[in-house]
């Protein structure tokens, strides 16, 4: 029903790349008047290979910036503001009104007046200027590589995660499988981080994290297997397209055929609970339980390394919410109420990206709400729930899905 704002990321970036290459070519051709061999360089720059390569690089950069700079900051702001309002306080308030230069340096300048969007930027800058301490007897190679492992495996998810039917870097036919594989690399990074820091607390935290995350990946994947009975494919764009029709009309509102409303409802619940555990949210945040283990497996990290592992928790939350939205809540499908005509190109008022972002942020808001109202569950109780409750329920979900498939 809805239309994407960016029909094809590759094409949009190609326009940009072609423009940049043309400018560079003109400069080189201008120099080529003095040095004739440079014309060959200019021609090579305009060739297909270079343009395609540059387009890919720009597309990846756009997606990474979109995911980390825009979405990560907004998600962190949403969480911090929402939970502080739950706690009956104002919350973060550093925003552009706090900046110390003109026109904000009025004499009676209230620094804590805004909505607080720049607080996370300020925290990031603060972490950047801190000293990166390595413990003395820590396994140096592993200690330094594990934040990189966690961060890079999380960013790999966004290579295959589409933000609408056109805004993606790569559309893999086994996209969901690739995303889960990238998701599952992070527990390895967490285990290495906890173990290599030469600290009993982090060791306990890392082992707990490894045990918990491994236990909760199984029901997650089993729930998706139950879903595959219905969708028949692991391509996220295909899955969303199948949910784009109207199930039945309830008065003026048409209930869409989202998989959450179908017999997959049990799978939806299991997937959400398992995803909460994968994102290490309270009630499942025992690996970094600050009550007992100071900061858990991240205790020994300081400076921006801590910023990476700490901030990418929110990036995994975005990825997790995106997965839930794609698989069960119809992804980016939603009505586009009108289209504007911009120079002959029809631009939808509510494009697919907006619906997708709306769903991601609403799911995350529900996760934040649950997180900050419940105590944390103890590790052996978490493992009990994961192995003894969620896996049988997910097997039941597979059975139900298979049954409905047989019936028709």
């Amino acid at each position: 029903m809805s239309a994407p704002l960016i029909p094809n990321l590759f094409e949009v970036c190609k326009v940009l790349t072609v423009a940049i290459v043309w400018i560079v070519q003109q400069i080189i051709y201008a120099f080529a008047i003095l040095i004739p061999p440079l014309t060959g360089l200019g021609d090579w720059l305009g060739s297909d290979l270079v343009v395609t390569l540059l387009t890919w690089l720009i597309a990846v950069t756009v997606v990474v910036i979109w995911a980390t700079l825009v979405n990560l900051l907004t998600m962190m702001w949403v969480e911090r503001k929402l939970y502080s309002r739950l706690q009956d306080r104002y919350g973060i308030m550093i925003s552009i009104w706090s900046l110390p230069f003109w026109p904000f340096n009025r004499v009676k300048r209230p620094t804590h007046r805004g909505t607080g969007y720049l607080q996370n930027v300020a925290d990031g800058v603060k972490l950047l200027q801190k000293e990166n301490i390595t413990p003395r007897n820590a396994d140096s190679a592993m200690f330094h590589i594990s934040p990189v492992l966690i961060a890079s495996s999380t960013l790999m998810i966004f290579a295959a995660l589409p933000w609408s039917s056109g805004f993606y870097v790569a559309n893999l036919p086994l996209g969901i499988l690739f995303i889960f594989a990238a998701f599952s690399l992070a527990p390895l990074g967490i285990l290495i981080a906890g173990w290599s820091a030469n600290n009993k607390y982090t060791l306990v935290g890392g082992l707990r994290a490894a045990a918990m995350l491994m236990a909760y990946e199984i029901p997650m994947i089993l729930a998706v297997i139950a879903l595959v009975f219905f969708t028949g494919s692991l391509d996220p764009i295909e899955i969303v397209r199948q949910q784009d029709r109207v199930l039945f009309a309830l008065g003026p509102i048409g209930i869409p055929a989202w998989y959450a409303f179908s017999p997959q409802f049990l799978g939806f619940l299991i997937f959400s609970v398992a995803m909460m555990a994968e994102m290490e949210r309270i009630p499942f945040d025992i690996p970094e339980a600050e009550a007992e283990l100071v900061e858990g497996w991240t205790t020994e990290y300081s400076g921006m390394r801590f910023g990476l592992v700490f901030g990418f928790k929110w990036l995994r939350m975005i990825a997790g919410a995106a997965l839930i939205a794609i698989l069960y809540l119809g992804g980016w499908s939603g009505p586009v109420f009108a289209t504007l005509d911009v120079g002959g190109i029809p631009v939808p008022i509510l494009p697919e990206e907006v619906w997708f972002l709306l769903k991601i942020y609403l799911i995350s808001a529900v996760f934040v709400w649950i997180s900050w109202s419940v105590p944390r569950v103890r590790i052996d109780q978490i493992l009990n729930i994961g192995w003894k409750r969620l896996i049988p329920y997910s097997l039941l979900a597979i059975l139900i899905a298979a049954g409905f498939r047989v019936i028709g």
Partner: protein
Amino acid sequence: MPEFWINMGPQHPMTHGLWNMKVKVDGETIVDARPEIGYLHRGYEKIMEVREFQKNVVLTDRLCYVSSITWSHAYCLAVEKMMGIEVPERGQWIRVVSLELQRLASHLMWLASYGPDLGLLTGLLWALRERELFLDLIQLMSGARMNQNYPRVGGVRNDLPENFEAMCKRSIEHFREKLNEYENIFHSSKVFLMRTEGVGRISAAEAIDWGVTGPNLRACGVNVDLRRLDSYETYEEIDFEPQVWHDGGAGDSYARFIVRFNELRESCKIVLQALEKMPKSGAYRVKPPRRAEGEGYAKTEDSRGEALFYVIGDGDDRPYRVKIRSPVFCTMAATPILLRGNKLADVVAILGSVDVCVGEMDK
């Protein structure tokens, strides 16, 4: 994996005070525990031998800084027993009001610190918000929110302000509604029950043997409340129920939590009754003699248990010996029993439910 000792503290975000808990773990299960205290030892008993009787109240306030009036009151009571003087009736009633307001503030601080121990950070902010109500009342009454220097040997420092009863009623009504809100995030939360039921169990016989007193003992089922058993001030004339855990499964963290939570409601009742029943005017203070000889002890129901002060005077204007018996000090001795057999993640849940205040433990 072999058993090894883990240090929880002295630098730890959630131990509520500076002390060290060494636990020996086998995987996740605790095999042994050894508390190491004394990081906050300030030499109180020695210092108090140099100050005059009244000037020691400034020190006893800071023994347990969260619950200052109860400690200073215990000291003043001990000195009054030694001197043989009696506080006038209105002074006793005002003392009861101040003690119960302080008990409310102290228990709310406990609640605020118990939530984050379990991961429920919302509980911290809600409980501290309510504690502000009582700190405001205490400030109106005595001039300071904490460490008030309010009890005097022979009474209290000043009379209650005008309109105090109306202000108390308003605050307590607001507070009672909020208590129902707390039940939503604490009592009705399945995760909270999972974390606290059956955890940190101690039997009644062991508790009495190891000197555990106060709400911790009442949670084991033993009906001992010093405000009833060994009444002081005007507690005899007030109608309240010592909260004792009657059902099975006594002695675990959940029982201690419920007992302390219900004491919040009881303290509200006591404050309102005391404000009604007290004589509307009268002396609230007598002047004690400057020099005193003899000995006296006073035991009171502090927010954390039985606080006992033993004061010996030898005719000088300052005490010869002051002994402070802290309830948390004796409960610390029982921590190996409380912790053995539980998981490492339960240490904070158990120690939080026992309500440790390091100031009174280390003197």
